[in-house]
C-alpha cells in the first residue's frame, strides 16, 4: 500500500501501520489459517465430506429457510419502508426505531424467546415442522436489512417524478412498477442479499427452535460445531477437517454474495454516470 501523495496532515504512517497490523492479527492470520488448513485436505476427502447426505440436507435447510426468509423480508421490508417513509400514523417513530432491534438483540435471547413463543402458543405450531420455525426466526434475524437499505432511497425520492408520471396518465400500480421500483431496485436487492447472507450464517437464534436432528432439522453452523468435536472417521479424516470443509463452503457462499453485491453496486453506479 504505497502512498500516492505526501500530505501535511500528521499520523498517516502511525494510523495506517496500526490498522494494517491489527487487521493482520485479527483477520488476515486467522483467515490464512482457514486457507492453509483447508489446503491440507485432499480433494477427495473434501468432496466426500461436503456431499455427505447429512451435510447436503443441512445446506438445504439453511439455504432454503434463508431464501424463504429473505424473500418474505424482501416483500415485507419494502412495505414497511414504504409505510414508514410515506405515511404518518401515531407511533410511527417508535416503530421506526424498533426496526433495529434484531441488530441489537443478542441472538441467544431471540432464540429462547421464539422457542418459548412456539412452545406456549401451540396454534403457531400448526405446521409444527422445523423448516417453518427456522424460517420464522430467520425473518426476525434478517428483518432490518431490506428496510434500512430501502428507506434512505425512498426518503431522498422526489415525488415530482411521480407527479410527472401521474400527469402523463399512469395509474398507481404502473407508477410503482415502472417509476419507483426501478429506482429502489439496487438498494432493495442488496438488502435482500444482505439478509440472506446473515441468515445463512445465523446460529444463535436458530438452535433453540430447530430440533438438531441430523439429516432432518440441522442447520449448517450446527453441523460444523457437531463435527468439530468428532473423533476421526473411518478414513482418518479428523472432525476439525470435516468442520473446516463445511465451513469453507459456507464462507465461499458468503463471499460470493458479497461479490454479487459489489457488482450490483458497481452496475447501478455506472447507470448514474
Amino acid at each position, binding site marked *: 500500500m504505497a502512498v*500516492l*501523495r*505526501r500530505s*501535511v496532515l500528521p499520523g498517516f504512517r502511525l494510523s495506517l501501520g496500526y490498522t494494517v497490523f491489527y487487521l493482520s492479527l485479527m483477520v488476515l492470520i486467522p483467515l490464512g489459517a482457514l486457507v492453509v488448513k483447508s489446503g491440507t485436505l485432499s480433494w477427495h476427502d473434501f468432496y466426500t465430506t461436503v456431499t455427505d447426505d447429512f451435510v447436503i440436507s443441512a445446506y438445504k435447510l439453511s439455504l432454503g429457510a434463508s431464501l424463504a426468509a429473505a424473500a418474505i423480508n424482501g416483500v415485507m421490508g419494502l412495505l414497511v419502508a414504504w409505510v414508514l417513509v410515506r405515511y404518518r400514523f401515531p407511533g410511527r417513530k417508535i416503530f421506526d426505531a424498533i426496526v433495529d432491534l434484531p441488530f441489537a438483540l443478542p441472538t441467544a435471547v431471540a432464540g429462547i424467546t421464539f422457542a418459548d413463543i412456539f412452545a406456549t402458543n401451540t396454534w403457531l405450531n400448526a405446521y409444527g415442522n422445523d423448516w417453518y420455525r427456522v424460517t420464522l426466526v430467520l425473518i426476525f434475524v434478517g428483518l432490518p436489512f431490506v428496510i434500512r437499505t430501502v428507506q434512505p432511497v425512498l426518503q431522498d425520492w422526489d415525488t415530482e417524478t411521480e407527479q410527472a408520471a401521474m400527469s402523463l396518465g399512469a395509474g398507481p400500480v404502473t407508477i410503482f412498477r415502472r417509476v419507483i421500483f426501478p429506482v429502489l431496485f439496487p438498494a432493495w436487492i442488496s438488502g435482500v442479499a444482505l439478509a440472506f447472507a446473515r441468515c445463512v450464517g445465523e446460529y444463535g437464534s436458530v438452535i433453540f427452535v430447530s430440533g438438531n436432528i441430523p439429516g432432518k432439522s440441522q442447520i449448517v453452523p450446527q453441523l460444523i460445531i457437531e463435527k468439530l468435536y468428532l473423533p476421526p472417521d473411518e478414513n482418518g479424516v479428523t472432525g476439525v477437517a470435516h468442520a473446516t470443509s463445511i465451513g469453507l463452503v459456507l464462507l465461499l457462499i458468503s463471499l460470493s454474495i458479497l461479490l454479487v453485491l459489489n457488482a450490483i453496486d458497481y452496475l447501478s453506479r455506472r447507470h448514474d454516470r
Partner: protein
Amino acid sequence: MSIEVKHITKTFGQFTALKDVNLRIETGELVALLGPSGSGKTTLLRIIAGLELPNPGEGEISFFDESVGDQHVSRRKVGFVFQHYALFRTMTVFENVAFGLRVRPWKSRPSRSEIRDRVEHLLKLVQLEGLAQRYPQQLSGGQRQRVALARALAVEPKVLLLDEPFGALDAKVRRELRRWLRHLHDDVGITSVFVTHDQEEALEVADRIAILNAGKVEQIGTPEEVYEKPVSPFVLQFLGNVNLFHGRTTKQYVRPHDVVLVADATGPDSIPAEVEHVAFSGARVAVMLKRKDNGTILEAEVPRERHLALGLHRGQTVYVDVKESRTFEGDYSI
C-alpha cells in the same frame, strides 16, 4: 520582499497544476492570484502556506528572505483563510479565535487574560463584538468569513493567505466585504495574497494582480497595467469582454467600450451592423450587433447620451468605428 516563490512545479498524478512558477510579493502588498478554475491559483496559495507540498526539486519558497520550503505548515506562521472558512464547529467564536494562541507551547503561550484581551480586540476589529459566545453554525456567511479572518490574524502571522475569500457569499455581502478587506489591509498592513476567479474583485481590491493560466503566471502587475497593457490575448480576454476582428494578418482585439457607434459611415473602415439587442444598465448601455458583412456578433458599450442621440432600437442599421484596438505579436489570423 516578503514572499518569494522560485521554480515551483506541482503535479497531481498525470495533471500538471503548476509549471515552474516564479512570483515575488513585496512587503505590505495585497496581491490577487487571478485565473479560471484549474489554472493552479489555489494550489499555488496552498503551496505557499505549506498545505500542499511542491514536487521535490530545485523549487524554493521564502518568507522575508528566509527559506521556508522545509518548514511544516504549523511552523510557517501563515494566516490562512479557507474558502469554506473551516471554522471549528465544536467551538464558540471566541474559542475559534483563541485557538491559535492556546495551542502554543507553554513557554510562549500568553496568559488567560492576555488571550481574552487579544481575542476581544480582534473581534472588535472584525466588528463581531457581541457574538463571541455564538457557534459558527449560528452565524451568517459574512460573519463566518470575518471570524475566519480574525482567527487567522490572532496568531500574528507573517503573511495572510485567503482562498476565494468571498466565493461563498452573495453578491451584496461580497461587495461590502471586499471594500472592508481593503480597509482592514490598510489598517493592519500585513502582506496578503488572495485567490479569486472574479476579475472585478481583483481589479477593485488588489495592489497587484498575478494572472494564472494553465499552471503558469501569465502576467503580474497593478490593475491598471494588466488591464491597459495585457501581455497576451488570454489576459485581455480574462479581464473583460472583448470583440475579435480578423485583420489581414493579425487578430485585433477591441473592448466593447472602445467600439463607437455612428449613424453614418465615417470612412472605409466603418463596418455596417444591425442592432440585435439593447440592454440598459444605468449610465451605460450594452448593445449587441450583427455585422452585415460576415454576420459575426459584436458587443458595444455606449454612454446613455449616445444611445439617446442615435435612438438605438432592434433592427436598426448603424456603423461601427474602432476607437482603440490591440494586437499581439505571433498571434496570427488564419
